[in-house]
């Protein structure tokens, strides 16, 4: 048992060590530590305002932790710009959908291929063979990704014209286009019907396996989270109140209290 635990910790892809962030007088997250192993699907839950999104923002460099450190495969991420962190292999979606509103569905995904682009502005001007080949490859790859999420029929539509649920799924596709090692999903199933939700969860599980990535999932619906997550962290008022496999979390009195308190 001890052996597997240390083994897991050594392999951990993402590590947060005692991260704290304050906004003025408000401590949004306090002394939070977590570890996500390669290939793991981890849940992050907590009542409204618990600090889940803030954890995402600290990991992706949108906010800088006031204290503590964020490590990806042992490398410190503190102070890196968000785009650089994405470059290291962390991609995310947003709770309040942030698609590129003036672009088509296709272009939303294509834009995210920028990160691993071999050709730059000069090639865009000369439009040589290698450049056109790369553009073609990106187009193919974009369509493949859209297809996985059953969105390729919308490829020419403006992204804002999509139904709400499809916009959320498009955000996931866009994040995958950056070829991440770790995918952060902020309430990807918000506003979906129960069937849509369970379909999405299957899809997330499928993506995690096929792309061999780790996933950190924020979701309010307990049943959904319990169903697919390997492990779950629970935050309340910025403080971690529980951590463990779904079976333990379900029966943890502090978790029950936090959620009952909310209701």
């Amino acid at each position, binding site marked *: 048992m001890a052996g597997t635990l240390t083994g897991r910790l050594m392999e951990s892809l993402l590590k947060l060590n005692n991260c704290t962030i304050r*906004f003025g007088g408000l401590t949004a997250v306090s002394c939070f530590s977590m570890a996500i192993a390669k290939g793991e699907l981890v849940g992050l839950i907590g009542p409204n305002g618990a600090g889940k*999104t803030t954890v995402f*923002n600290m990991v992706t460099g*949108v*906010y800088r932790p006031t204290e503590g450190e964020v490590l990806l495969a042992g490398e410190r991420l503190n102070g890196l710009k968000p785009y650089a962190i994405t470059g290291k292999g962390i991609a995310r979606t*947003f709770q309040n959908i942030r698609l590129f509103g003036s672009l088509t569905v296709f272009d939303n995904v294509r834009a995210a291929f920028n990160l691993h682009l071999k050709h730059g502005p000069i090639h865009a001007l000369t439009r040589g063979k290698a450049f056109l080949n790369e553009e073609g490859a990106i187009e193919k790859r974009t369509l493949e990704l859209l297809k996985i999420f059953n969105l390729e029929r919308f490829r020419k539509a403006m992204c804002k014209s999509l139904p709400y649920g499809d916009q959320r799924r498009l955000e996931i596709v866009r994040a995958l286009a950056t070829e991440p090692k770790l995918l952060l999903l902020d309430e990807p199933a918000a506003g979906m019907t129960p069937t849509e939700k369970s379909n999405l969860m299957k899809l997330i599980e499928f993506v995690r396996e096929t792309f061999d990535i780790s996933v950190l999932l924020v979701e309010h619906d307990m049943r959904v989270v319990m169903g697919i997550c390997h492990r779950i962290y629970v935050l309340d008022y910025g403080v971690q109140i529980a951590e463990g496999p779904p079976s333990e979390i379900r029966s943890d009195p502090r978790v029950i209290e936090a959620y009952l308190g909310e209701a």
Partner: protein
Amino acid sequence: MDKLIEVLQQLVNGVSLGSIYALIALGYTMVYGVLRFINFAHGDIYMLGAYSGFLLAPLFAHTFKFGEFDTFTPENTLFILSGAGLIMVLSMMICATIGVLIERIAYRPLRERPRLNVLITAIGVSLFLQNMTQYRLGADPKAFPQLIPVYVIEGLGNLTILTSQLAIIVATIILLIILRFVVMKTKIGLAMRALSFNPTACSIMGVNNDVVISFTFALGSALAAAAGILVSMDSPSINPLMGNLPGIKAFVAAVLGGIGNISGAALGGLIIGILETFVVAIGFPQWRDGIAFAVLIVILLFKPTGILGRVEREKV
């Protein structure tokens, strides 16, 4: 000793110039506070203030004997001041109305649109006001009528202070006191502060945001008009483009003090005025208009919140 007098002299010049910037800056900062947008046309309200005075003065010239006194005497002081005061108050009322109308017609329909659209509209309004004034009243400079006698105040030794400079400083102090009272002690002032703190909460709490915003425009425009009148007493040549540079400098003042912050705007105005005066005094008169931009760039790079501003972080 001479050096001290010289510094004191420049300080007085700087403060009177800075008072003008402060009065204009207040309008920028208050509008930014409630609407989060820079009213590009604010400098032109200042210009319209001067032109209102220019057009109003002849109507009252006979009653108040404008231009007929050479000095203040104990007998005529009150008479002169009430004449000048009347022109100023009327101009302030006219400009307040114009400010409210501009907001109603051009800005309000755009309130939910991207801020850039409002900015573009404001540029349009600014161009419109300048060029309409040019069209109706001519592009050439006009001589502003003498509302108060302007001369060097006696008995100050080597210090040269004009009555007009004194008028600017005193009037600004009075206006600032009134403004402070309005903002801190009245209901509508409270609503203004609440609105700049949180618009949604404010309307949920039953405040009529539209009324508060109109009031803010009225207040800001009135102060700019006062600045226009005061400045024209001191340098009595006005033209339709006179609002451009002071407008931008006052904007810089507002940013310097921390945009959205009322005391900051007044402080920023004084600092810019004094800086500008000293830049000229130490021998770089050609850079007097450049210094404000330099300050702006430095501020935005090193302390974008200004001296008294608070941090606002975008929530993600």
